[in-house]
């Protein structure tokens, strides 16, 4: 009896929501307010939505993978897989990150889930930094953007990998614990889920993904909006005129990489368009820093980790990239 009521009421509510959305849709098509809005706001909105539309598929993939990890991977697995030795763990995580074709928008929920499952923070950071930077699509697009020349693509991957290793190493020395904002009571929770059937586990994986999406969603939206705002109102031109020396041009390019929040698969072409005004070292800074950390990503990380930790990691990434590039710039 209850069951029948319940089933019908779910369908009924579902249909109500569909009707509501369609009603709003038809309202919106008949009611376009375009005439009194300044064009720069429309530009802002278009760029904002395009960043969001571009990121959404990857975020969805990210939260689904996070859901899979939450339900199917147990703490025991993690303990068995990750080496006890810190350095080994970091090297392993960086290599896994390099093999794992992730995008920077999708990687934060995955990292959060991994840390929640007991992956040490330094290994998680190594994975987070190499994941979006080193993958086949990024290599191919960098190769093409720089005139089918492997030099820049190779340097990007090589130096990027080195930077990720160094950052993860320093993180392992400075930070202890899992650094998550909401402390997780690590208790083996999935002794009970083993009793559940596969379909129940699959179902709860999907509901977990939905919750994860709503957790991440607001930060994604804010990040996309900020990045779009910067693009519409901050003249890159003024920045370009500011950077002439090696140090200032590198700072300018890294600053651009941070605020533009481009997808790592597309930023090579933008980087290439600067190659006549800036030295190669500055372009490399742009290409390596962008995928590791940007405005959109920082906001998403703030939703997961403690503020102090996020700022610490950001400062580490910036300084290590800076030092590395200053050291090698005479050779490239």
């Amino acid at each position: 009896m209850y069951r029948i009521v319940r089933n019908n009421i779910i369908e009924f509510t579902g249909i109500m929501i569909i009707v509501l959305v369609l009603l709003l849709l038809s309202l919106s098509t008949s009611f376009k307010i375009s005439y009194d809005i300044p064009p720069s706001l429309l530009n802002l909105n278009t760029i904002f939505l395009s960043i969001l539309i571009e990121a959404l598929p990857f975020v969805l993939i990210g939260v689904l993978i996070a859901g899979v990890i939450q339900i199917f991977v147990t703490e025991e697995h993690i303990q068995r897989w990750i080496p006890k030795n810190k350095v080994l763990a970091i090297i392993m995580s960086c290599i896994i990150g390099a093999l794992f074709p992730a995008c920077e928008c999708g990687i934060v929920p995955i990292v959060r889930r991994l840390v929640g499952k007991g992956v040490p923070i330094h290994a998680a950071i190594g994975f987070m930094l190499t994941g979006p930077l080193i993958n086949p699509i990024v290599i191919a697009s960098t190769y093409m953007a720089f005139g089918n020349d492997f030099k820049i693509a190779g340097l990007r991957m090589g130096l990027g990998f080195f930077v990720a290793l160094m950052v993860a190493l320093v993180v392992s020395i400075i930070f202890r614990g899992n650094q998550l904002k909401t402390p997780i009571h690590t208790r083996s929770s999935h002794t009970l889920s083993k009793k559940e059937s596969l379909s129940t586990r699959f179902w709860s994986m999907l509901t977990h993904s939905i919750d994860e999406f709503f957790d991440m969603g607001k930060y994604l939206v804010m990040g996309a909006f900020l990045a779009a705002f910067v693009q519409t109102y901050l003249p890159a031109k003024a920045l370009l005129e500011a950077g002439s020396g090696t140090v200032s041009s590198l700072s300018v390019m890294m600053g651009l990489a941070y605020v533009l929040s481009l997808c790592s698969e597309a930023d090579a072409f933008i980087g290439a368009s600067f190659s006549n005004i800036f030295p190669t070292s500055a372009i490399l800074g742009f290409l390596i820093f962008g995928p590791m950390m940007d405005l959109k990503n920082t906001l998403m990380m703030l939703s997961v980790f403690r503020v102090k930790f996020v700022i610490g990691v950001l400062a580490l990434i910036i300084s290590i990239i800076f030092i590395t590039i200053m050291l090698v710039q005479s050779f490239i």
Partner: protein
Amino acid sequence: MRFHFQQAVRAFILLAFSVMLFKLHFTGEMTKFINPKYEGLSQSASVLFLILFIIQTTRIWTIKDNSHHHHCHQDAHDHNCSHDHGDSPFNTKKLIAYLVIVFPLITGFLLPPKVLDASIADKKGGLAVLSNQKSENKQEEKAAANNNQQEDPVINEELVDLSRIEDNVYTNEEYEQLIQQLEQSSTIEMNDNVFSTYYEEMHMDLDKFKGREINLKGFVYKEDGLEQNQLVLARFLITHCVADAGIIGFISELPEASSLEVNTWIEAKGVLDTTNYNGTKFPIIKITKWKVIGEPKEPYLYPISVKVL
């Protein structure tokens, strides 16, 4: 039975995202946001949202004694999944969070997408980023291309085929042919699908193309430092989404330049030459014939990709 308001709101938002993406595809407005090559990705996102919506609807109503049966709420204190399941009480902080997520839905449904214009070109760096890129490392490659050209000079028949290639994906040979066409034709047709390729190729050796005729379309962009009779005929090149749009275009010279409004689209015919601007060598088009046109249906350019394997 218990009604969970927040779960209903979440279901609504998921469906709204799905419908918004679907609507953008359906009306064709999607091309104003992303490169059509990646449309498949956002289409699957739309489908995924729909699936998540269906799953979410089952959580709106729960039978009272069932409400804590969620696997990680088995024991009320053993909360180990660190995220909000939408069961906790509603407060201002949450209201703000939902408003933030709803925000793109509102602007997406209500505001029309806008084609990027000259003001964005200016913000993106204008002429400074538009000059010749990576001219050195392409020299060798060009020499190789020249050799090939001598080996098989018959290429003009393929002209029609090449311009019809779908999705802008070319094989290596097709790409070579494209470049040869450019090098041999006396009038360069800057069609949308080859615009960026030709543009790059021409910048590798500006003098080689001096004196050739060129036909192109673009919008008017102006910058301080240009002469009275000069303007830039510019286009945006979209790699992935409009956020990564890069500006490409030619400085053009025509007597009526000062009377032409910024953002006007024109179709022009002219002769290529070179000029110096801020110490950098630029190509310049001496326009012989031009007319104002409406904004094209596909205002953006997309880079072609060459199949490596």
